[in-house]
């Protein structure tokens, strides 16, 4: 839509949430699991690495055509499923008029390898196969032709468009944890400025992938030797990849009111930066600067962070958190694992859910950094400091 003369920034509401994680599918299942302090980890399948495996769902309920499901691998299925849940939650599923102009910013990595093909190639190479066209021949004959579509980063958005009919503008952002911070930031800015009325934002991650475990093994990031909560990993840093899909519908207050939509919370602001992490304390300073830009109100609140357990970034975040001790902290990396691009929308979802429930979910931390919060939170800061680069923050507030 064409925006007009600069007008006051429009208020933006979170009106739909879709969650499918290692703790279950849907808002109730995840909320109950958090309140029960449940954690679902698998320390066997990918030993010595640890993952938070996806809790099985019936994909048919959101992706009715088997043909569509077959075109995707797990990552796209999880995302398309969670996106459907968000559209249901917002009450726009099947509303062609709205969906036809709904904007979408999806954060995505990429899709699964065909590991059987990869391993066969590597074994053959190890046996001394060195024909010039050997790799070509194996790939041409081994890969199923539509696998590429299941791997392409922008095809998560593409599948959401095809399956659910979301067909306004569609953008896909890449870049690990920061990608979904920026997806939320840009979607919010567009609606606030009148460049958009309603948007679907979010991501999905399949952490049960050997190729991704290998990528993070290169950097020494995988948590090993037993699962412990994020804040207790200082002597054995690392993260456990998790599988999750987290999507939100956000829209202008006027648009929501006009269609009688009930909001969960207000998405007040999203800020982001990329600090050069060349000096100690760079992340701490970056987070503090973002806090000052965010518009946090005096008084207390809650803080939901995607802190990964990787070092030195997690210690730097702790130093920042100590400056804001009147905010009760919750680390989603403990309950859901490290879901990279999905971590920030997961945090936004839990912030909105907590505000709508009038309660922050309980702490899950033996170190005492996370404390109980007895009052209903009216402001929740969602924090995302990437394991390697990028820092972001959002302010989610109760609507008075």
């Amino acid at each position, binding site marked *: 839509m064409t925006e*007009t003369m600069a007008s006051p920034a429009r208020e933006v509401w979170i009106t739909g949430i879709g969650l499918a994680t290692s703790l279950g599918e849907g808002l109730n299942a995840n909320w109950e699991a958090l309140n029960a302090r449940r954690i679902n980890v698998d320390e066997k399948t990918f030993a010595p690495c640890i993952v938070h495996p996806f809790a099985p769902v019936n994909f048919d309920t959101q992706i009715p055509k088997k043909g569509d499901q077959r075109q995707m691998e797990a990552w796209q299925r999880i995302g398309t499923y969670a996106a459907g849940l968000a559209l249901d939650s917002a009450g726009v599923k099947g509303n062609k008029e709205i969906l036809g102009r709904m904007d979408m910013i999806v954060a995505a990595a990429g899709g699964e390898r065909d590991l059987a093909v990869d391993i066969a190639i590597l074994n053959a190479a190890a046996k001394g196969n060195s024909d010039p066209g050997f790799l070509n021949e194996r790939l041409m004959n081994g890969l199923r032709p539509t696998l590429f579509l299941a791997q392409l980063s*922008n095809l998560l958005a*593409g599948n959401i468009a095809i399956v659910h009919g979301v067909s306004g503008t569609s*953008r896909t952002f890449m870049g690990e944890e920061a990608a979904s911070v920026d997806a939320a930031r840009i979607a919010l800015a567009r609606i606030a*400025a009148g460049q958009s009325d309603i948007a679907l934002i979010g991501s999905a991650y399949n952490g049960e992938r050997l190729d991704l475990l290998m990528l993070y093994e290169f950097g020494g990031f995988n948590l090993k030797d037993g699962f412990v909560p994020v804040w207790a990993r200082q002597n054995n840093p690392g993260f456990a990849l998790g599988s999750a899909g987290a999507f939100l519908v956000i829209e202008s207050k006027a648009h929501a009111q006009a269609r009688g939509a009930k909001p969960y919370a207000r998405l007040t602001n999203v800020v982001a930066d*990329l600090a050069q992490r060349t000096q100690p304390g760079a992340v701490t300073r970056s987070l503090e600067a973002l806090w000052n830009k965010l518009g946090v109100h005096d008084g207390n609140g809650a803080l939901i962070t995607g802190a990964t357990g990787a070092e030195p970034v997690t210690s730097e975040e702790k130093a920042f958190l100590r400056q804001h001790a009147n905010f009760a902290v919750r680390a989603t990396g403990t309950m859901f694992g490290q879901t990279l691009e999905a971590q920030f929308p997961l945090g936004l979802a839990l912030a909105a859910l907590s505000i709508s429930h009038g309660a922050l979910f309980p702490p899950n931390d033996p170190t005492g950094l996370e404390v109980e919060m007895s009052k209903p939170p009216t402001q929740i800061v969602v924090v995302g400091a990437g394991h390697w680069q990028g820092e972001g923050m959002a302010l989610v507030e109760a609507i008075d």
Partner: protein
Amino acid sequence: MAAPRDKFGRPIVVVTGMGVITSLGAGKTDNWAKLTAGESGIRTVTRFPIDGLKTTMAGTVDFVTVEPFSTVGLTEQIALMVTEEALEQSGIGSKGDFPGPLFLAVAPVETEWPPRLEIGRAVGKTEFDFSDLLRVSGGGKYAQYHRRFLFGSVAGHLAETFGTKGSPISLSTACASGATAIQLGVEAIRRGESDAALCVATDSSVNAETLVRFSLLSALSTQNDQPQGASKPFSKNRDGFVMAEGAGALVLESYEAAVARGATILGVIAGCGELTDSFHRTRSSPDGKPIIGCVRKTLADAGMTPDQIDYINAHGTSTPENDKMEYLGISTVFGERAKQIPVSSNKSMVGHTISAAGAVEAIFSLLTLEHQRIPPTINYDIPDPTIPFDVVPNKARDARVTAVMSNSFGFGGQNASLILTREPI
């Protein structure tokens, strides 16, 4: 002097710097000379063995090397180069201090075969599985592969090198990515978030697996015997696109800020539009409505009518599907004029630069406006009678051009268009 706001009251967005690399060469001068001479950058691939491949040609950038070689590394290197060219021309900011955000359209990043094969050799056995690979991947020996193969690695390096502000965005909308990067920059300036934006698009991903992937979808031309003649948009005997590499960078500024610092204005991004096609993962909706809608949205965004467009820089991939759908879309919006308005495809010469295409072709569109010369669609020997475009066949043409529409229609239903003018409307 024109007013700094457009007819909708938004800051006018202008271009003050451009940089481009394709298989034709590095820089605007070389590219423009060869483009208007009707030269092709497509060659038989020499970068890796082509035995057994159905498509053995591409428009690779072979005159830039990176050590150690990875296509991600090459993608980053040409992005650096085009950004330097654009910044040099623009004169904005100072070295390492660009006063605005970075929007980077980039080929999706993944661990590549050379390091994968290297890890495989490190296992030290001839029969092994992935858990063995995982076992030898640790210990820090391959730490450089973690940082190289993160999706955010290219943008991170660009942001560090050029000192862009805030969080850099890496994006993909498949073949529309380059246009999307420009749109994000335009939107940010229109919102008043910044007076400037650095929009870069880069794709140097020709390797065995990417070529095989497109090949398995039957998307590529197999007319390998004459590589330079294979990309033949709008021709009757077209049979698929030719994969290529390239990068484009544009410095966008608000008209007001550009004039205030005395910058030379190279052109105006008068309008942007995008519309999703939810029909199929690779094919367009047969009724053409998303393409038609995208083109109309773009005209509306610019506050222009079809009559005001003097030239269309087509998506024109040379696939049977796209070129047909592009004609349907354009002829629906432009009516009878669709047969007269020049419509040419740069891809006939530089191939399909995938994630970079929208930006590379926007730059060629701006050069068209600067030089008042339309690059041809080459290899147009057998016209497709069902696509009666004036494709500017085979030879460049001097023409009066005031407004250009540049189209990008990508896999996954991503449609994006830009309207570029020399002067504010």
